[in-house]
């Protein structure tokens, strides 16, 4: 057990920082206020990810056989941390390299890999996750969007909601119901978003432009070859993907950076002298660092080749605690930050407040911890 980065890991981090310094515009912090799913940031990311690819830091953690450099989980972590501290200039494309690419590689057909992996590696594709539905949020397994196989095509009808990036995405990683057998009746279909019958409506939100949508599927028809994995295999595949996704966003690093920024602003205003504000700031810092250590413990499991189990839920919940604390600290001591005084802190707030809701709610994480980490007897259903 040792807690220092190796020289190579430090060098990798500096390479990313140097790249960001050289390639982000001077007005980046103000620009990033548009939000990660906004048209402006999506367009920016299409150019920025090409530069990342050219510099070899778009997907260096992918295995060599996928075109990556085979760098390890720690390098993936470092890459994700630096991008999030910078406000995620990859926009929605972070998902591509974190979990969509590896999931395609693990479960996709040759045709699907050929079709979808190359645009990801060129920084040119944007995906959305068609998971939640109006009546299937935390209870995702109750989803009802139906896909019926007719004459070699799937015909899809239903509605998704809270779908990030749907407005500009090329492809939807869509969960559909192909039988009534609850979890075993769910099937993934990869649906091009320009398929006739898809209607996307943006829902105004607190978390930035273009982030949340409802998506309607009316007799949307795609070939059977668009099915991802077997019929009924979605729950297994999504479990694999979400365990990656929960760690994929190192939110604690942005929360920690936002806290530092808030403290600097308070000091500049002469408002960081009292004991209470210092103790509260330190409490927030400790929660951010706590989340970091829990996340790192899970990364170590990846390094050791162990399954990422429910420990990722524990790390995720620690992150939610940190995000909540920092968001509340900023509003309590620097209310002006969210009213124009700090685009960076507003950006953090908008991304931080979804920590307990996205990728499986905090309460679902607690259920998983109770059952799978503490191994408590299960609740009766």
């Amino acid at each position, binding site marked *: 057990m040792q*807690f*220092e980065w190796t020289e190579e890991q430090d060098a990798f981090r500096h390479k990313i920082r140097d790249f960001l310094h050289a390639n982000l515009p001077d007005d980046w912090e103000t620009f990033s206020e548009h939000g990660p799913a906004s048209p402006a940031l999506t367009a920016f990311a299409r150019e920025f990810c090409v530069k990342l690819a050219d510099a070899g830091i778009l997907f260096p953690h992918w295995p060599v056989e996928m075109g990556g450099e085979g760098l390890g989980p720690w390098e993936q972590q470092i890459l994700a941390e630096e991008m999030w501290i910078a406000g995620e200039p990859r926009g929605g494309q972070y998902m591509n390299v974190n979990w969509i690419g590896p999931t395609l590689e693990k479960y996709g057909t040759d045709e699907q890999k050929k079709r979808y992996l190359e645009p990801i590696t060129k920084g040119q594709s944007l995906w959305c996750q068609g998971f939640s539905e109006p009546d299937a949020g935390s209870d995702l397994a109750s989803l009802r969007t139906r896909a019926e196989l007719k004459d070699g095509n799937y015909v899809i009808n239903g509605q998704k909601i809270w779908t990030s990036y749907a407005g500009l995405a090329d492809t939807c990683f869509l969960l559909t119901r192909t039988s009534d057998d609850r979890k075993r009746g769910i099937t993934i279909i990869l649906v091009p978003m320009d398929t006739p019958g898809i209607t996307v409506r943006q829902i105004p939100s607190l978390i930035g432009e273009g982030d949340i949508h409802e998506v309607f599927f009316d007799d949307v028809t795609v070939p059977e070859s668009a099915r991802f994995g077997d019929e009924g295999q979605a729950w297994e595949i999504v479990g694999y993907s979400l365990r990656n996704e929960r760690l994929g966003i190192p939110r604690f690093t942005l929360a920690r950076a936002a806290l530092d920024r808030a403290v600097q602003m308070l000091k500049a205003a002469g408002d960081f002298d009292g004991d209470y504000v210092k103790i509260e700031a*330190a409490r927030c810092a400790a929660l951010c660092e706590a989340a970091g250590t829990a996340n*790192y413990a899970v990364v*170590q499991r990846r390094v050791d080749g162990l399954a990422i189990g429910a420990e990722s839920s*524990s790390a995720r919940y620690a992150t939610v605690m940190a995000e909540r604390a920092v968001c509340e600290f900023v509003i309590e001591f620097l209310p002006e930050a969210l009213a124009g005084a700090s685009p960076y802190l507003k950006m953090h707030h908008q991304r931080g407040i979804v920590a307990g809701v996205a990728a499986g709610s905090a309460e679902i994480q607690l259920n998983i911890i109770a059952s799978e980490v503490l191994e408590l007897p299960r609740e009766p259903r």
Partner: protein
Amino acid sequence: MQLSLNEDQTQVLDFIDSLAKPYATVPMHDVSLALESAELDEALVENGFLDVMAVEELGPVMAALVIEKLARLPFAVEAAASAMVRPLIDPELPRPLCLMEEGKARKPLRFLRPGATVVVVGPSGVKSFITTEDMIAPAQEDTLYGYPVAFLTSQPDSMTSHDVDVAEITRAWRVAMAAEAAGLLGAALASTVTYVSERKQFGRPLATFQGMRHRLAEDQVMTNTAYWMAMRAAGTGSQADAAMALHHAQEAAKRVCYDYHQFLGGMGMTLEHPLHLWTYRLKLLTAELGGRGAQGLAAAEALWG
């Protein structure tokens, strides 16, 4: 970054496990508020487990791991100060070691007894003296803290001054307490989980009620992170990490002790169950080094000046 235990660490922890096996459960019919074993203490000393920090290939993380492991036992062991702080002051100081903040003699001192070394840490430096019977007043017999505690009634005019950095000793003290608290948190959680998984009310185990499951899961998150922060603070030697680790452990202690006594109901109030040995030790550790507020101020100073 390498967060798995290495071979040496695994081996030392396995040795401790086998050595401490006779002390892993509470003796039948023992209704003590505190529980100690001179034999266990002697075995730990004889086998060098409290001196691991000075061994080059083991170091402070190993010391923190040893402290954490021993704190899980129902038997209280004076390991934290001896294993983490004593090597930085004088490895020959007689044990047990009682760490005291300068000017805070009003507080009960853990493990204080004739022959113990009291180390006074404060603005005027780091000083120590060996206690004699006339300097000590016992705490009331049924004190609740789960540790043997006593009061220091007087201090000698002349103490041994140690040429060490007060800030560095305070840092190590924080790490030692964070590691001890992490072990107590782990043991208290495990004990509670066992109880609520077996105890049935309304026809089913208590642990099947979501109101309890969610709180226990949150307690797991705090306990897990308290462990990792203590280990990291031991590894990095950073002032900020040490202060944050103890702050977080004290915060966790404050929260979980309440939960666990609630969940054990009547059993958590009686001495038939050993829960109090961990929770009331934790409660006393929340007062260590000025408590959360002092740790917060120390962390803020280290982080932001």
